[in-house]
């Protein structure tokens, strides 16, 4: 069995049956993502026919300014944020082995917000915006370290981690509000828009900062395929098979936190994507980690881009933060998970 879990040799990873099915579904997901991507480019306050979008992708069109300067960076940003959150949630759920694990529920995104808001309030004038992802990654890392330490008492149980995370989220919210209230109102409304999770005003500069970070991190997560697959059998078996469980748990958590921190840094708190995307991936795909990474990334990005389409068009001329709609889908889904797992955990 061990032979099948070879890193990045997708072809001999599963028995043919599973492989074909999952590959087929992955291709469908990829197509779906592309379709959402194209629709995102064409929909908005001014409608651009799909044909013109294709024309623009190939060469130039009449709509170059809208497409190239306004929509394209925004849509790519949505793609990156969704992919980052999806994979981050997938890793987190694997590590704490709990279906409810998600970066926003256990306070990681809250910590990232604190980092980002501190940066926006105090440093944005003096330092370039390139450092914003770093600030929010540091915030996320510090917060999750605190949560992890506080949940420690003869080991970390997932439930305690989540409870403490909820508590810490309240604290990070309070800290963010504190800085918002004490800063000038121009900064405050900017921060507020950011907090609700908006892709509004994304530009190429932000995309070029975020793109390498997210793609590198997702690429890195493939290196853990083998370990995560073994770990799902449980800590004891994993140790028996020679996996350094604590060490890899730490590495995986770090990866997940960094992804969430980076994803949140420009788009703000786009809630619940990290929770739902991996769940959907697990329902429709074979439960091998490499599959799930690609699946969660594609599903996450489709959700965020889709939410952003609604956000841009439903309340014209207003531009509602996409986070409102992801929460609108995500919170009921979370409640459904609670319902479905009603016997599973306390």
């Amino acid at each position, binding site marked *: 069995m061990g032979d099948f879990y070879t890193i990045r040799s997708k072809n001999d990873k599963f028995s043919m049956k599973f492989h074909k099915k999952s590959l087929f579904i992955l291709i469908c997901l990829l197509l779906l993502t592309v379709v959402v991507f194209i629709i995102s480019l064409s929909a908005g306050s001014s409608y651009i026919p799909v044909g013109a979008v294709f024309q623009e992708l190939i060469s130039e069109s009449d709509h170059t300014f809208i497409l190239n300067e306004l929509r394209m960076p925004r849509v790519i940003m949505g793609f990156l944020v969704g992919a980052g959150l999806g994979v981050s949630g997938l890793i987190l759920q694997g590590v704490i082995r709990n279906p*409810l694990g998600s970066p*926003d*529920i256990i306070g990681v995104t809250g910590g990232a917000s604190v980092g980002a808001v501190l940066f926006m309030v105090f440093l944005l004038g003096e330092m370039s915006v390139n450092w914003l992802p770093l600030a929010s990654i540091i915030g996320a890392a510090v917060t999750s370290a605190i949560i992890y330490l*506080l*949940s420690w*008492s003869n080991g970390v*149980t997932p*439930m*305690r981690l*989540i*409870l*403490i995370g*909820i*508590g*810490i*989220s*309240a*604290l990070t*919210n*309070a*800290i963010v*509000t*504190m800085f*918002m*209230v*004490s800063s000038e*109102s121009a900064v*405050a*409304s900017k921060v*507020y*828009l950011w*907090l*609700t999770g*908006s892709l509004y005003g994304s530009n190429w500069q932000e995309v070029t900062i975020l793109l390498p970070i997210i793609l590198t991190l997702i690429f890195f997560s493939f290196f853990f395929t083998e370990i995560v697959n073994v770990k799902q059998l449980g800590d004891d078996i994993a140790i028996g098979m020679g996996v350094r469980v604590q060490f890899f748990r730490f590495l995986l958590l770090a990866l997940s936190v960094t992804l969430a921190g980076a994803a949140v840094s420009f788009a703000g708190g786009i*809630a*619940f994507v990290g929770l739902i995307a991996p769940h959907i991936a697990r329902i429709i795909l074979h439960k091998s980690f490499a599959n799930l990474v690609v699946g969660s990334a594609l599903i996450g990005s489709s959700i965020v881009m889709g939410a952003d389409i609604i956000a841009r068009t439903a*309340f014209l001329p*207003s531009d*509602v*933060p996409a*986070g*409102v709609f992801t*929460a*609108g889908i995500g*919170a*009921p889904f*979370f*409640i459904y998970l*609670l*319902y479905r797992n*009603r*016997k599973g*955990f*306390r």
Partner: protein
Amino acid sequence: MIKSITNRHIRWMTLFVLLLLFVTASFLSISLGKTSIPLSTVWDAFFHYDPSDTNQVIIRTSRLTRTLIAITIGTSLSIAGALMQALTRNPLAAPDIFGVNAGALFFIVASATFFSVESLSGYMWIGFIGAGVAGVIVYLLGSMGEDGLSPIRIVLAGAAISALFISFTQGMLVLDEQRIQSVLFWLAGSVAGRELNLLLPVLPFILGAIILSLLVGKPLNILMFGDDVAKNLGLNTGLVKLVIGIIIVFLAGGSVAVAGSIGFIGLVVPHIVKGIIGPNYQWILPISGIFGATLLLCADIAARLIIAPQEMPIGVMTALFGTPFFIYIARKGVKKSG
């Protein structure tokens, strides 16, 4: 129930000390702020009122209102928290954790945005409805498991419901940009800048609920033995629970309508009170009320002074104090329930 003499002493002592602290905090709350007013002037403002003295006018018009609101909200939230913890047998129950605050907030902002409800009494009733809806949803979700109400399920359900309501509220506020700054303060919870006429329509309901809560202390003590025992002792458990539920909705919904979402008071206060005077709800409820009022007064004073001349929303202060406590209970409570 056998009460040892020492226990009784402790209760009366606690009550006495708390009342003393409460009165001190009230006077300080009236006297401290952007302009500090000497206590003698505070005294004069009540007993030898002189309309030509600006300080006395400040006291009578703004400070006094603020103090009264802080007292009302602190009392209501603490009693609501104590009742919720008793009713759900959940050490982590509190209005904000149940999502009751967020529910009331969402309904109020939605009614203002979509149905242009402007009147204060309208807000109040809608706040009650929102509090009730959110509370019932979370209660049902939390009690679905085989083992009945599980503390962690309730907290999780409450977190999800809160997140849902809060993000919808934020969405509506983004649609209505002029309101963000004014509502933001309210969103974070605040007792500042409120007019007395905001409190007045809610006050009868809150006062009624507080008085009613003093009466349910005894049946609640019996209920704590468990439903079966209570039924055998001749208690109409359904009725008691319903009454307690209504009290909670009035207290929590009314508080949100007046002061926005102020967290953690309802969680922290009953725990401390129970720790000091033991598990007798006839005493826990009133003492929680006084203690909650005192604590909120102190938090409000701190909120005024900490970044003077600006003000911090009081909800931020309570969260800063309350989170460590939440974590403490979460660690302790989860260990106990496995």
